[in-house]
């Protein structure tokens, strides 16, 4: 019994020992597996994991560049960057969104519009953890209030950034254009690298035209972040390259005068320095506050502007196309006399109408009863239609089209005006293409007084006036005077070929004829030229919108609804001998060119030339 018990115990001990041996082998093998696994991860795969841990912690963050500034010719700042605080919410980090927005409403002023647009963006397409702006341009007090309550506002952040600001607002809205938030469509063909960290892009005008130069180049910082994306430290930093500053030919004071002259009338004024081709003023009225584009238009203001019959978003200076009317006459007359169709002494007797030799159709002069005996000089001064009807009939379309073309009508000759319309300088082919009819002699007659198919923008007329003032010498019309990026000036294209006359004295004689318009005894705009301390030249134009009943002076009879009233034109340059400024003024439905647009031109000259004298 004892023996067997001892035997048993020995057996049990051996059994246990064998099991422990098996366990030992088992454990030793598994330990080797663990060590082998660690060896594999830490030694064999070390580089892979090392790289992985680096990309984990290191992040490259873009630093947006500072947008280039825009100055006028005297260094007045037209577009600047000012710091702005934006209140936004990271939806993923916030709790009850409605409660949070209500809470924020106690701290900052929130309009219903801002709240509803915020929720639209929350519900719309967005990237996760993207801060959704609730309000831009917080006041300093609001920034302080939000910061003080920050710990209670989970997911709320206030970011400072530089945003565009246009100190002169409406006056320059069309000339400078504006920047706005990059939209989905723009995002598609954008160089994402160049716009890293940048939320705005030039949408119109100079801002759009010179977008690439104004933008600058983004910098970056390589930062170490923790798992929640908070920056622990900055490892490497490359500063952004700020955008180029632009100095434009625009003259802020002149622009303001031009803007004020138009007042509440729809229209446009363009002024050019003939010597340089520099655009001194480029006004389209009504304007709008471009700053609203930057901060985001409140819906009701945007809708009101969009639906306004005055069409404030239309840049009339370059995209408003109007019949050039009588302002075209000096160009036609110049060609006619230089090419020998008439002489300066040649006269006709105007009885108030013109009849084509082959047709019964009668073309009336604006003055019932006619101007009597007129030569070219008087025809210009008094804007005698009949004289130019006959001249045009004699010259035929091709010669007319050619001279208009030489002065830049029907095409874009500007270097850096964004997206202009070209107007229409009609030809036989053009009419055939466009209307499917052949060219009639009557069309040529209409062309002589800038009506019919011909359309021009105020910019085109100002340019043509400038070339006329320059005695045919073309300088590429431009906005950019200089920039710290010198390559920009090299990109200004060559101008069209100069206008050459057979007899150069014709320039002076046409200038004199145009001086008669404002300073002669019978000039159409002599009232506006009274008392000028300098000699200048001009030409009025009254573009028919619709055929209406007129009295013997061509003025409408009775009360004409505003939208049917004539467009008032005036073009001119001053001083006569050494032109410093060429101007085109258009007042939509303004009525008489000499009566409405003429005085505006005079005021501009007075300001511009007298200020020059003061300096």
């Amino acid at each position: 019994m004892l023996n067997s018990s001892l035997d048993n115990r020995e057996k049990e001990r051996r059994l246990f020992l064998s099991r422990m041996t098996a366990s030992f082998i088992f454990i030793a093998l598994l330990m080797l597996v663990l060590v082998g696994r660690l060896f594999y991860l830490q030694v064999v795969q070390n580089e892979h994991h090392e790289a992985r841990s680096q990309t984990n912690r290191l992040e490259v963050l873009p630093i947006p560049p500072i947008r280039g500034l825009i100055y006028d010719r005297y260094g007045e700042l037209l577009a600047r960057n000012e710091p702005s605080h934006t209140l936004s919410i990271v939806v993923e980090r916030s709790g009850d969104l409605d409660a949070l927005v209500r809470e924020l409403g106690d701290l900052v002023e929130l309009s219903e519009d801002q709240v509803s647009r915020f929720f639209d963006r929350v519900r719309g397409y967005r990237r996760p953890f993207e801060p959704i702006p609730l309000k831009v341009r917080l006041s300093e007090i609001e920034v302080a209030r939000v910061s003080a309550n920050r710990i209670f506002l989970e997911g709320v952040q206030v970011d400072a950034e530089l945003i565009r600001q246009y100190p002169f607002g409406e006056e320059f809205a069309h000339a400078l254009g504006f920047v706005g938030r990059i939209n989905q469509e723009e995002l598609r063909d954008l160089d994402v690298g160049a716009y890293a960290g940048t939320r705005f892009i030039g949408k119109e005008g100079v801002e759009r035209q010179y977008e690439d130069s104004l933008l600058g180049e983004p910098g970056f910082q390589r930062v170490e972040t923790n798992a929640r994306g908070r920056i622990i430290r900055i490892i490497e930093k490359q500063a952004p390259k700020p955008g180029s500053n632009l100095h434009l030919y625009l003259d802020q004071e002149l622009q303001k005068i031009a803007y004020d002259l138009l007042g509440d009338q729809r229209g446009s004024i363009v002024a050019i320095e003939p010597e340089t081709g520099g655009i001194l003023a480029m006004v389209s009225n009504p304007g709008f506050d471009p700053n609203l584009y930057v901060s985001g238009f409140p819906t009701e203001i945007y809708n009101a502007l969009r639906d306004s019959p005055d069409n404030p978003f239309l840049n009339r200076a370059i995209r408003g196309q109007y019949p050039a009317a009588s302002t075209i006459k000096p160009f036609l007359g110049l060609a006619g006399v230089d090419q020998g169709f008439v002489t300066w002494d040649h006269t006709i007797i105007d009885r108030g109408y013109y009849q084509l030799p082959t047709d019964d159709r009668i073309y009336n002069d604006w003055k019932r009863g006619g101007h009597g005996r007129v030569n070219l000089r008087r025809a210009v001064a008094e804007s005698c239609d009949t004289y130019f009807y006959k001249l045009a009939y004699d010259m035929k379309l091709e010669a007319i089209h050619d001279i208009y073309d030489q002065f830049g009508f029907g095409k874009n000759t500007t270097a850096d005006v964004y997206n202009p319309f070209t107007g229409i300088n009609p030809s036989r082919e053009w009419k055939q293409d466009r209307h499917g009819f052949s060219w009639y002699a009557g069309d040529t007659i209409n062309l002589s007084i800038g009506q019919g198919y011909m359309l021009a923008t105020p910019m085109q007329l100002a340019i043509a006036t400038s070339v006329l003032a320059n005695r045919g010498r073309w300088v590429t019309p431009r906005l950019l005077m200089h920039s710290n990026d010198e390559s920009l000036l090299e990109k200004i294209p060559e101008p069209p070929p100069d206008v050459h006359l057979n007899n150069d004295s014709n320039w002076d004689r046409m200038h004199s004829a145009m001086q008669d318009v404002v300073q002669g005894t019978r000039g159409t705009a002599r009232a506006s030229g009274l008392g000028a301390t300098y000699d200048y030249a001009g030409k009025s134009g009254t573009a028919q919108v619709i055929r209406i009943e007129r009295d013997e002076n061509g003025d409408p009879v009775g009360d004409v609804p505003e939208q049917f009233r004539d467009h008032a034109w005036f073009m001119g340059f001053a001083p006569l001998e050494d032109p410093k400024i060429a101007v085109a003024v258009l007042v939509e439905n303004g009525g008489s060119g000499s009566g409405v647009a003429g005085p505006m031109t005079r005021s501009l000259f007075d300001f511009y030339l007298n200020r020059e004298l003061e300096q």
Partner: protein
Amino acid sequence: MNFTEYVRQLPQGSMDRRLSVWTRLHLDPYLFAALLAVALGGMVVLYSATSGDMGAVYRQAIRFGIGFAAMIVIAQFDPRWFQQWGGTVYLIGILLLVAVIVSGAQAMGAQRWLQIPGLFRFQPSELMKLAMPVMLSWYISRYGLPPRYRDLLVSALLLFVPVALIIQQPDLGTSLLIASSGLFVIFLAGLSWKLIVSFSAIAISMVPVLWIWVMRDYQRQRVLTLFDPNVDPLGAGWNIIQSMTAIGSGGLNGKGYMLGTQSQLDFLPESHTDFIIAVLGEEFGFVGAVVLIALYAVIILRGMLIAIRGRDNFCRLLAGSLTLTFFIYVFVNVGMVSGILPVVGVPLPLVSYGGTSIVTLLAGFGMLMSISTHQRN
């Protein structure tokens, strides 16, 4: 007669009785030294894993204090005591596990703790970690080795009930450890290889059953992400990708103490609890990780030696089961953090922050020391 002579005499006297100081203190020096080394080294790593939170290290030190005290106290008891009280403690453990489920149901949700009002929260499953091997070792050793079929059936039942209760909590890690401790007793008792093979075959064929009816979604997800963490890199796969990156980027010598970017910048989740070995691997490299594993190997070898030298079947089975279970702790934790086992929530023994597991583990080592130092009746 002076003081120096007295000091000299003491070792001679103990030599005479062939009992070292350690034996009289009922402590095992090798085990003690290795445990202390892991504990101290673990706190050094913990300081880094908590990004320098001294408070956490103090709290961990207090747990070690309690744990070592428990170990020393338990080591003073003769293994007979465990035999006598094992069944009672096991029964109490079962009752408490039921209580957890009942109170959990009242609280409308799963829970693992039992709140003793005004006192402390207690995890009955920790008690079961010790009660299970004691209970089974006692039960099987009563009838001699190898166990008969009837004993096996009863053992299986004793094993199944608490494990099933703990899986319900749900606590996969703990139930796995408790199940292993019981299975190891049965294995060491001499369960025939034939049966082992057939049970394994049945177990493997049960996998689909487990997958479909027993496992919860999060457990399935963990298994799936084990095979390919990139299935869900920001969700369930995140932990494992980050821990592998941490360990792997440590290289041979590590990035330096407190300089692990994965752990210090919070990419590594649960860096101070279950995933703490990733901090060690990242900051001390392959060398540091192997040193820790070597220390664990010393503990395990010593435990196996104690088991083999055990004075009777109960002592051998208990010591063997405790030691092998400790190994399972190490293997499952390191295996899951290094990406070869699914994440089941097993802490790295004596290093991971917190919980009652430190106290339970050290209490278990107290039993080992008791077995090692109470050789004669």
